[in-house]
């Protein structure tokens, strides 16, 4: 590939200027003429029948414009997953978790709306709740949804090869159990929206989302109306991390409030609501059984996972499957069994989180694998290399590994972290000393480009060029701070040969942008980047043909870069700028230049478009991390000294933003691994503020050493998605490091000092 002008370069985010000056307008900053403020009356009970709702006093409060309950809206039970229709916009008969929506108020101010909430009276008939997934599966457990007949929402059972034969042939069989707890997204901007109803039955929604089209589809589903009646305008989010893939339950409420008042209604979560109501990641209980040979070759691996769905179904089905896929694909193992259950409880519903279940199952297996290595007397790196994936089809699942830098990732991690020396040094340290050090690693594979979920994996982009040469890309890219719009700008500038500052991004509005499910699964740079590149090349072709007329040569002889069209073989010959070409087209030819791009992965995966397993991921990305710790054996306190993270980026489109993605993922991963304990006691969230839910601060971050492996994959310019993978191996790497330091393995996240000390005491060391 020839020299690039912007791809692969350190380029600041195109949105940063408006953000450092305070001019960037987010949802919370928006006001509209006549706008009302909404608030939701939420259940204080974990599980109860609603006997009576009295909103009469609230309705009489001056400044209150509407108070609605289930009685005021058409009865409807909905879900984004057709297999599990279970949720109402406002509860009519029963509440199923603390925070469940019962009534809503629209008022002239937030204060009045809050006052009105205090005047709403609800009589409950408390019901026994169920909170632990294993207990919830028992036959006598209270039912979260009586009509379902069971708390088991869904199950998945997959076997590849012959698991029993695999175990029979193994020299050793290891079994273990892990719990990967919930994690709160803690976006700095809490969830919210503005809804505007218009006569004729249509709705316009402004909201930070990870996919405006998804929000549109889901809102239409929730309201039971035709999609064409909904327009969603995405407002650049103040953080998302998976939380904003699915519809915010506030949106349909705000929509109804707007319908009842005829005015725009803004509904924004308080930070407290955000903690107990805006959904978290799924808790995974993971049972593992692994058969290995004496040498450490894995012959059979089996996982049974149980996910806490919470009270209503969200992304659970997809997550059970995705976690199973990455579990089955990481390491080339001939016999695999995976069983997943999704279980209702009276806890807050769970949703997607950056990593999409991978971190939960990866923590379990990667910690388990270190235990196996220890028992066999193998170095953790050795056992991983022995079972490494290779390019091509995997043995059992027949997943296709397009590019596989497994070995490079692990070896580079080892080199940058000083693995061999440190491992040896810490093995030999005086175990009686108060402070003990350890180094641990973990490997991961993740999708490099979303999934063929439902069979769909496509993106579209349009380019228009105005007479001044400004190139506008119409794209579904969603800006969450991750740099999606900057990446698209780079791709268009590089692809067309125009200057970056001449590129504009038009996105966010479902009435304008092509269909696209959104930013998740590390997919947008790959898919929408492909479409943008195709559109750029399409427009470039037209541009060069016009330039050929201007320069009196053949289009094939021309190329463009950085805003200049030039002769490929005679770079010193007269040139024209891309801006001049645009002007020429309009003034001399009387026409315009445009471009169209489509990326479609038309491969129908094995098993059909909707039911595929490992083949539903089109390309896999790899990553490895090593963490070095020091543990105070007197208090169990763990200090993280250094983290080394290797990421398979395919190709690093923009190292500045790519590093930012990994740094941020590491902070979130370390938070999850270490301090972010999300405590729910019988359905009540006890960690409902930043005082007790400890997200990392600047001082908590250790030295971070990053590098990228460029495996040159199928994405535009060779990219793979990197938005999620940075937090996947972090938990196990930490737990494994603490294990080397102390001999204590923490099997339930987070690895907090109290648990470490308890482990040390049980071993008789403390």
């Amino acid at each position, binding site marked *: 590939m020839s020299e690039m002008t912007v791809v692969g370069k350190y380029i600041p985010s195109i949105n940063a200027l408006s953000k450092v000056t305070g001019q960037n307008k987010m949802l919370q900053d928006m006001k509209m003429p006549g706008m009302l403020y909404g608030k939701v009356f939420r259940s204080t009970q974990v599980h109860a029948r609603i006997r009576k709702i009295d909103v009469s006093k609230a309705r009489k409060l001056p400044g209150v414009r509407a108070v609605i309950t289930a009685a005021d809206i058409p009865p409807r039970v909905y879900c984004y997953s057709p297999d599990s229709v279970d949720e109402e916009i406002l509860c009519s008969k029963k509440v199923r978790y603390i925070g469940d929506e019962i009534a809503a108020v629209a008022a002239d101010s937030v204060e009045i709306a809050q006052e009105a909430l205090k005047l709403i009276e609800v009589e409950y008939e408390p019901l026994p709740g169920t909170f632990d997934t294993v207990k919830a599966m028992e036959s006598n457990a209270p039912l979260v949804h009586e009509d379902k007949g069971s708390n088991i929402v869904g199950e998945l059972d997959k076997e590849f090869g012959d698991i029993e034969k695999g175990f029979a042939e193994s020299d050793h069989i290891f079994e273990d159990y892990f719990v990967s707890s919930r994690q709160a997204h803690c976006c700095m901007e809490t969830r919210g929206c503005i809804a505007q109803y218009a006569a004729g039955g249509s709705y316009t929604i402004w909201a930070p989302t990870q996919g405006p089209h998804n929000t549109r589809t889901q809102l239409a589903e929730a309201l039971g109306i035709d999609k064409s009646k909904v327009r969603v305008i995405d407002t650049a989010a103040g953080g998302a991390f998976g939380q904003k893939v699915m519809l915010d339950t506030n949106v349909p409420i705000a929509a109804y409030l707007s319908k009842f008042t005829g005015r725009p209604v803004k509904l924004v979560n308080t930070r407290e609501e955000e903690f107990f109501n805006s959904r978290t990641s799924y808790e995974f209980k993971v049972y593992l059984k692994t058969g290995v040979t004496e040498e450490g070759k894995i012959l059979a691996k089996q996982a049974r996972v149980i996910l806490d769905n919470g009270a209503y179904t969200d992304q659970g089905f997809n997550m059970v499957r995705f976690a199973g896929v990455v579990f089955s694909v990481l390491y080339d193992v001939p016999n695999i069994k995976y069983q997943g259950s999704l279980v209702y409880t009276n806890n807050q519903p769970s949703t997607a989180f950056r990593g999409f279940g991978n971190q939960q199952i990866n923590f379990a297996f990667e910690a388990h694998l270190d235990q196996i290595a220890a028992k066999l007397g193998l170095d953790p790196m050795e056992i991983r290399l022995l079972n490494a994936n290779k390019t091509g089809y995997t043995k059992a699942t027949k997943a296709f590994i397009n590019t596989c830098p497994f070995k490079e990732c692990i070896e580079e991690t080892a080199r940058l972290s000083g693995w061999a020396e440190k491992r040896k040094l810490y093995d030999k340290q005086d175990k009686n000393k108060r402070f003990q050090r350890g180094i641990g690693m973990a490997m991961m594979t993740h999708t490099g480009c979303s999934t063929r979920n439902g069979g769909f994996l496509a993106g579209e982009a349009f380019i228009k060029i105005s007479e001044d040469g400004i190139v506008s890309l119409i794209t579904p890219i969603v800006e969450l701070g991750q740099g999606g719009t900057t990446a698209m700008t780079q791709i268009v500038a590089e692809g067309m040969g125009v200057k970056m500052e001449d590129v504009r991004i038009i996105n966010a509005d479902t009435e304008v942008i092509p269909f696209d499910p959104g930013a998740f699964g590390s997919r947008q740079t790959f898919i929408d980047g492909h479409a943008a590149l195709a559109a750029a090349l399409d427009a470039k072709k037209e541009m060069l043909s016009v330039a050929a007329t201007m320069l009196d040569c053949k289009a094939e002889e021309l190329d463009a870069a950085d805003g200049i069209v030039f002769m490929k073989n005679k770079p010193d010959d007269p040139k024209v700028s891309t801006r001049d070409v645009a002007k020429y087209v309009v003034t001399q030819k009387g026409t315009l230049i445009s471009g169209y791009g489509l990326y479609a992965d038309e491969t129908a995966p094995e098993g059909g478009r909707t039911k595929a397993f490992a083949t539903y991921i089109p390309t896999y990305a790899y990553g490895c991390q090593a963490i070095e710790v020091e543990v105070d054996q*007197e*208090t169990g*306190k763990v200090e993280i000294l250094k983290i080394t993270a290797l990421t398979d980026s395919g190709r690093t489109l923009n190292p500045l933003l790519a590093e930012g993605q990994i740094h941020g993922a590491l902070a979130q991963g370390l938070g999850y691994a270490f301090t972010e*304990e999300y405590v729910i006691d019988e359905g009540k969230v006890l960690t409902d503020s930043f005082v007790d839910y400890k997200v*990392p601060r600047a*001082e908590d971050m250790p030295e971070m050493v990053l590098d990228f492996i460029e495996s040159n994959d199928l994405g535009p310019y060779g990219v793979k998605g990197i938005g999620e993978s940075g937090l996947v191996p972090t938990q196990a790497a930490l737990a494994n490091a603490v294990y080397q330091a102390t001999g204590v393995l923490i099997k339930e996240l987070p690895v907090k*000092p*109290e648990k470490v*000390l308890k482990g040390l005491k049980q071993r008789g060391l403390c």
Partner: protein
Amino acid sequence: MNRFDYLKPVDIKEACTILADKGSKAKPLAGGTDLLVRWRKGKVCPEYLVDLKGLGLEGVSVSKDGGISIGALSTLNSLLDSEYICRNYPFLTEILDDMGSVQIRNRATIGGNICNASSTSDLAPILLALGAKSKALALDGERELKLENFFLSPGKTVLAENEILADIQLPPFSKKSGAVYLKMKRNAMDLALAGVAVFLTLQDEDTCAAAKIVLGAVSPTPVIATQASDALVSAKIDEKNIEKAADLAEKAVTLVKKEVRPIDNVRASSWYRQDVIKSLTAQAIEIAYKRALQSIKK
């Protein structure tokens, strides 16, 4: 939102008058960093907030004996900037530097910290260890208070509704003394899960003349670990005695257990706090001892 009226008295007398008039309906407002959070959560519902800032209760004044009187309304950052405190009570500067965030310290006051009587206060243990005193003002006069008798339960102190805490007085810090406060927290910005303040004065290079060990965050109010402290008095500061004192400090938590439940919550279990107290105490004694030695040698 619970409504209140904000009142800004022009002098202490007016402040005292308002507090006397309004009784339990009024709450004094200092930095507000704690009060406003609790008000927003509906945990306190005052009808009046009486702002005590700007009444002259700010600043550090040095008394004749070299001790200091710290105005109760002094912000934590103003104390962090005090050169006199940094020179003469360097351990206090160290504690202030690790309290909350810069933003919080620019508002939070030492008096507010003490009057909130939070079990996790980082200042209470060290002030108790130093034997701090306070002056309380009311319309009908003032009274001296010993800080060790000041805390009744979380959020409750001996101050009457009509009284204002005017200052915190510290005795001069002797040349032969060393002090330190150590705490365990979950991450950089956190409340203490357990804290230990140690203040000791040496007789000579290895014998302790006086010692006070105060435990924080393990019980509803700070605990003076009397037996642990006594174990150090007239004793040699060596490994054996440090361990003995640390053991006794750990037991002090158990002693508390009999009267009131030691803190056992989402932040940490009581057994863990107790273990940490032992470790912190030993470490704190060593540090305080080294500091005392250094000051003798100076």
